């Protein structure tokens, strides 16, 4: 039995917008085991990205508890949360969010500057991550010199360069053509199968979700159906 990496218990999240309280998540509970590849599906506004942000410690729940890798995120202050996120989470955004003024290599090296690794050790890790995503020959390219699919592969390399246990992907194929989307899904599947990364991927594309081992559906802030592949 694989260890439970993510435990979410009765989490709610409300936003206040003007005079209105908007309930985004309404008592969500779920677990993700180490080594799983979970697709989180649902229509726009269902709370998928909010749940992902909560898992990454980017946002805090209104109530409920979230434990990731044995750590209750509610017990950490902002600074501790930043350090925890750096050690445990790799995040892939829909629009890649590479730093435009840094090359692919420098983008990957950036999170490693938070570690005590030497320059040579950082170089080895960056080279390895770029090799995994098949872009070793593009390391000196700036994001504007890469295609959308290549940018997303660099973003995935950046997410795994610190060797986190959990990779969170928010609509990673949402901005890509079909061919590039397929390559990204292949890459995520490879990370899960070959490198044992636990992946939680938000998507509203059923074909993307099929690549995951488990699908969870969110609708109006409630998790109410699941399917296994």
């Amino acid at each position, binding site marked *: 039995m694989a260890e439970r990496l993510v435990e979410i218990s009765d989490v709610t999240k409300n936003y206040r917008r003007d005079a209105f309280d908007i309930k985004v998540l309404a008592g969500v509970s779920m677990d993700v085991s180490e080594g799983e590849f979970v697709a989180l599906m649902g229509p726009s506004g269902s709370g998928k990205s909010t749940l992902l942000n909560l898992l990454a410690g980017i946002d805090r729940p209104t109530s409920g508890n979230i434990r990731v890798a044995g750590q209750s995120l509610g017990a950490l202050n902002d600074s501790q949360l930043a350090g925890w996120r750096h050690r445990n989470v790799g995040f892939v955004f829909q629009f890649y969010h590479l730093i435009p*003024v840094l090359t692919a290599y420098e983008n990957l090296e950036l999170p490693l500057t938070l570690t005590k690794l030497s320059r040579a050790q950082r170089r080895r890790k960056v080279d390895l991550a770029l090799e995994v995503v098949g872009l070793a020959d593009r390391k000196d390219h700036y994001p504007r010199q890469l295609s959308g699919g290549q940018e997303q592969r660099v973003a995935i390399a950046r997410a795994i360069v610190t060797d986190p246990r959990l990779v969170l992907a928010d609509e990673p194929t949402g901005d890509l053509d079909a061919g590039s989307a397929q390559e990204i899904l292949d890459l995520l599947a490879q990370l899960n199968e070959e490198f044992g990364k636990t992946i939680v991927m938000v998507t509203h594309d059923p074909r993307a979700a099929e690549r995951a081992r488990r699908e969870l559906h969110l609708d109006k802030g409630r998790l109410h159906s699941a399917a296994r592949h």
Partner: protein
Amino acid sequence: MIPIKYNVRSLFVRKANTLMTIVSIAFVVLVYVGVLALGAGLRVAFTASGDNSTVIVLRDGANSEMESYFPTETHRILASMPGVARGADGEPLASGETMTLQILERPDGTETNAVLRGVEDDAFALRPYIRITEGRRFVPGQTEIIVGDQLEGEAGGLELGSTIELGRFTFTVAGIFDSGGSSYGSEIWGNVQEFGDSFRRQNYYSSTRLMAESPAQVDALIEEIESSQQIDVAARGEPGYFEAQSNASSGVFLMLGNLIAVMMGFGACFAAANTMYAQVAARSKEIATLRVLGFRRRTILGVFVLEAAVLGLAAGALGALLALPLNNVSAGTTNFVTFSEIRFVLRTTPDVLGAGVLVATLTAVIGGFFPALSASRAPIATLLREG
């Protein structure tokens, strides 16, 4: 730590905005450095005038040679005091001097106050840096004068060989002297007796300069002079005397420089703030990404403050570069102690340029601090939504 190339390249992304801010801060630096260079030039003119072994004696209570007068007999007593160095001829190295203000007309019709200094022969031995560059020294009895290099061309009749009426006599310019950057460069020198006769001030001197046997003997000589019962005078080392004049005059420039820096810097602060707010607004996604990658709020604050500092350093460097041609530009002001005109050259010394760069950096950092603070405080989820 986020590499500094991230800051530098980010500033280049919005070139026009960055450049405008750099130029506006650079102009603050230019003005600030210009005013400080005036002060520095003036300070050099005064400090170059002081010699460590020389003691200047004035009437007790006088602050400058202009206010001082005492009988020539006092000078003779001073010259004979123990501790006064002697020249090759075995005579004490002492110069009794008079100081008179003379209004001269500039070529443009305006007037300037020049110092006429009557000196004895030893004046040159007491000031070895004074060098005749054209013509020769004046010859006593020939109603001749020599003119300081800073006065050349300042007023009519001061060219080599020309004549000028000073008091009752007409004097011929026998030579032009290089003052070694000292304030003597704004003076006209002649024989002390002849000036005394011409202005009907015989038998009185304004000051006496004495050479001590060594710099270490200066204090002993001053004590000897001031404890004398025969004469009522005050003595001090020449550097201290000129420093007091320097502070009175260059202090005005320092105050003015700081006032201008604060006023113009205040405006430039807004330019820096505007640029940095634009940087922060355009890069909210980048900030969010850095935070998601694990960079802490204080690191984000540091990133943008550093970026503002880079902006300021660039502006400081440009301002200093623009100010460099000011070096050695000739200027004149009033000596606020003697009320004579003093000519000197601006000095853009490393200290002055450094102060300019510091002001630029501070301006940018102060302007950039609040945008940086807002960047570091924004919640990640909000930055991701709004960017």
